[in-house]
């Protein structure tokens, strides 16, 4: 049973336009969400996160939105740049009870076309 789902395996966006990457989760205990960016043959790098007490977090060109009632979050990249081309992983965690389980989605490959 996949608790974190990224239903779009790939996404192509024109340079300068907005990229929207979506993520759904099923476990209502998740209270912290993270986005990671991964280039081929490299480890993922942390991008942005959001706590369940917020519905939006912004960092430069990156904004994450959280809709708890829909168990949905999205990552917006504006404007998209060719260097943003990578695989983006959504991750969720239940931070209570000393949990160490960071649950990842399968990733969405973003291609930004110059």
């Amino acid at each position, binding site marked *: 049973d996949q608790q*974190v789902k*990224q239903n779009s395996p790939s996404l192509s966006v024109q340079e300068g336009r907005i990229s929207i990457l979506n993520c759904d989760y099923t476990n209502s205990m998740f209270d*912290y969400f*993270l986005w*990671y960016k991964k280039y081929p*043959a*490299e*480890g*993922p*790098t*942390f991008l942005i*996160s959001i706590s369940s007490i917020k519905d939006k977090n912004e960092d430069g060109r990156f904004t994450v939105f959280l809709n708890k009632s829909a168990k949905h979050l999205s990552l917006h990249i504006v404007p998209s740049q060719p260097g943003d081309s990578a695989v983006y*992983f959504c*991750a969720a*965690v239940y*931070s209570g009870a*000393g*949990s*160490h*389980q*960071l649950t*990842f*989605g*399968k*990733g969405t490959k973003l291609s930004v076309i110059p």
Partner: protein
Amino acid sequence: SQTIHQWPATLVQPVGSPLSLECTVEGTSNPNLYWYRQAAGRGLQLLFYSVGIGQISSEVPQNLSASRPQDRQFILSSKKLLLSDSGFYLCAWSPLPYIEAFFGQGTRLTVV
């Protein structure tokens, strides 16, 4: 600043051979350490985590084991590799049990 080192970057091993992947962290003390695997077409799967020397927790039953002989050293091992052990293995650390994890460069393991 903190850095994480993981080696080797790529490895090709025959079925039935042993495995040892090493990960070290610099610039921090008592980190939480993790081993993940990314198999083809799948997300990142947590294999092991450690909150201290000699303390290892396994998330998924499998053909692998982990050890933490020193505070900033985490080792992933196998006595006999299976074809299904092929994948991209990632070591990570975090200062606290999950807020942000920082990943190493990964090891591409191919079992033939």
